[in-house]
């Protein structure tokens, strides 16, 4: 048998089981309702609330990735996971970078902020 440079990709159906789907569904349901109730009942102060529901969204993201998309269930060359992690990196740079640059630009371009900055920092 000639062994060409074959990229082996593990079988896609690993991890797809009834138990996984039910666990994922119940966990997602709970997380969604928790986030909703926390906001509508104003369970915490504003800043904690923001951190809390952002955290819940990230947990639900991981839950659905694991139980619905079966990430991390592949056998060894873990291409799926590798591509996934690279996607996370790109998304992080894209979103955090955009917010950083645009907030900074907004600050520099808005007349009121600029005026107060000039007065306080530059002595105008």
């Amino acid at each position: 048998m000639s062994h060409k440079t074959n990229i082996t990709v593990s079988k896609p159906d690993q991890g797809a089981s009834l138990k996984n789907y039910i666990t994922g569904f119940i966990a997602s349901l709970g997380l969604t309702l928790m986030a909703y109730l926390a906001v509508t009942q104003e369970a915490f102060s504003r800043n904690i609330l923001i951190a809390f529901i952002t955290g819940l969204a990230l947990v639900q993201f991981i839950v659905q990735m694991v139980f619905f998309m079966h990430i991390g269930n592949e056998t060894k060359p873990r291409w799926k996971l590798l591509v996934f992690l690279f996607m996370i990196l790109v998304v992080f740079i894209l979103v955090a970078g955009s917010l950083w640059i645009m907030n900074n630009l907004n600050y520099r371009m808005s007349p009121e902020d600029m005026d107060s900055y000039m007065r306080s920092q530059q002595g105008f």
Partner: protein
Amino acid sequence: MSQAKTTIIKRHLPEEDGDSKTIFGFWLYLMTDCVVFASLFAVYAVQRNSTVGGPSGVELFSLPFVLIETLILLTSSFVCGLALLAARRGNKQQTLILFSVTFLLGLAFLGMELSEFRHLVLEGDSWRRSGFLSAFFTLVGTHGIHIAVGLLWIGVMIIKVARTELNKANLRRLTMLSMFWHFLDIIWIFIFTIVYLLGALAI
């Protein structure tokens, strides 16, 4: 005997390999689609306060309505997973029923989203109103278009499976379809949290 077995395995391997490569390729597409959505989320985050005197999210969004939308889409994603399991078991009738349920739930979700859009536009709060609303309609609308495409795909697959059988090629297609559907639900987690819940807190 063992020779016969190896020939079967050899004959089977390239095809299975091809299948999993196709599915891996589809996974690559989903990951790049995540980047598309990430850029739309970034635009939304930057534009969230650019209301130029127009209404902000607090005044526009109804959280109970969005919660029902979210629960419908989540259930549809779950049922889609069950449908795939039924297909892998080779139960054609159950597969068709469960994918039909997925389709109907998806349709209900899309209907709710469109009625929300219609309501906003009729109130004069369309994408022309402000940067915030442009970003909102682009982000949520792109998700809606994905849902519409997904519904079309589910419809095609239901007809295909009903007319033929649960063969290898159809199983491969159903696997990718369910990945796509789960992916849309995962994107919705962030729309629900960032657009609606954080919008209600007026960040």
